[in-house]
């Protein structure tokens, strides 16, 4: 249909233009905002490609959480870079040409891959749909992520765990003490929105069984609950929170790997759930992942192992 073609062309043009504008922006803040808008347009493109699972993940993680992390980093750098000329120095010419060469080679390789792909492209989609009945869920994406290729997802969770461990080792908890308070209107907003966000996270988790949704999307929404709490100073982590936080960070990896060991003990393959109870296995693993991913994302946003003593907040 012509109307869709026009829409798609406008969408593609907007994505390319936003990507360029984000790169060309002089101001760091402007750059980040353009990057977040780019994420929303890319999510729209995924919707047009009929991949709503990816669209949800892109909007929640790629645009929302990543945007929050970037803005926080920008604030840190602005605080420190005052009088630090080296931070603003332009990269050398040689580095510029090096990067240009690398990008050209990569683009050429991608183009070659696109041209050389056999048609019709090899696909496992039929195999996935043929085995959907034994996967325990009705959503093919969740079936692949949590059952057929659960091993890959486990490794993704390990990556996230490694990131939060490093960030908490390197971060400086004192750097953020002077963040501005957001005031009573934000407090009222948070009080209305937070319970609903928790509800939506649970809804997305349950939805993953038969429609777009799942642990990563639910974890991102639940992680945003943590970010709102931290931003509004409704909750200030103290040194006493380190141990429970670390336990929850590890819950995803340990729980997922533990489920894998349990399936081995039952005499199945690693992460080969018993087909008649596959739904329960997937749901329990996804629930652990959701909580763990949420805590990890909020922990990343906090950016360091908390060191403060509990203080009584009076200014709301």
């Amino acid at each position, binding site marked *: 249909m012509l109307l869709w073609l026009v829409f798609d062309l406008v969408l593609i043009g907007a994505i390319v233009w936003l990507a360029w504008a984000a790169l060309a922006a002089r101001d760091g803040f402007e750059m980040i905002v353009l990057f977040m808008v780019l994420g929303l347009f890319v999510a729209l493109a995924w919707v047009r490609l009929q991949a709503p699972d990816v669209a949800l993940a892109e909007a929640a993680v790629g645009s929302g959480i990543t945007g929050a992390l970037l803005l926080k980093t920008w604030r840190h750098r602005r605080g420190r870079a005052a009088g630090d000329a080296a931070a603003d120095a332009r990269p050398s010419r040689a580095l510029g040409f090096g990067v240009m060469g690398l990008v050209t080679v990569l683009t050429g390789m991608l183009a070659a891959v696109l041209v050389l792909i056999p048609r019709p492209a090899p696909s496992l989609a039929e195999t996935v749909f043929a085995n959907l009945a034994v996967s325990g869920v009705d959503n093919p994406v969740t079936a692949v992520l949590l059952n057929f290729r659960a091993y890959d997802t486990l490794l993704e969770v390990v990556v996230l765990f490694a990131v939060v461990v490093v960030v908490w080792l390197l971060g400086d908890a004192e750097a953020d003490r002077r963040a*501005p308070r*957001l005031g009573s*209107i*934000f407090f009222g*907003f948070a009080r209305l929105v937070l319970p*609903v966000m928790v509800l939506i996270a649970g809804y997305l988790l349950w939805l993953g069984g038969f429609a777009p949704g799942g642990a990563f999307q639910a974890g991102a929404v639940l992680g945003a609950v943590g970010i709102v709490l931290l931003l509004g100073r409704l909750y200030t982590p103290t040194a006493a929170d380190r141990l429970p936080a670390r336990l929850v960070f590890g819950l995803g990896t340990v729980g997922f790997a533990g489920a894998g060991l349990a399936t081995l003990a039952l005499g199945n393959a690693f992460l080969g759930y018993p087909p008649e109870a596959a739904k329960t296995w997937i749901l329990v693993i996804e629930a652990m992942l959701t909580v763990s991913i949420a805590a990890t994302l909020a922990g990343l946003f906090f950016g360091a192992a908390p060191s403060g003593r509990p203080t009584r907040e009076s200014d709301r």
Partner: protein
Amino acid sequence: MTPLEILAIGILFAGLGFFVAGTVGMLRFPDVFSRLHALTKADNLGLALIALGTALLTADTSVTLKLMLIWFFVVLASATSGHLIARHALRSGQGS
């Protein structure tokens, strides 16, 4: 086209009009506060009309309820972020 569809499309276009007006206001108005004024108010009404139009087109109760919820929370979030931006602009003296 049924009368209901014509009504829905009319409402959708009215909603679009408010979005265009809000965007023009944001681009043309001189300072942070009047820009926010144009944007938050016009977009809230525009979104309400677009949600109403799509709700008429779907004629599905659960989808309509979801659209109403989306509108409510977007209005809440845009009012709050508008307030935060204005407050920051006021305190840092970037208002004009």
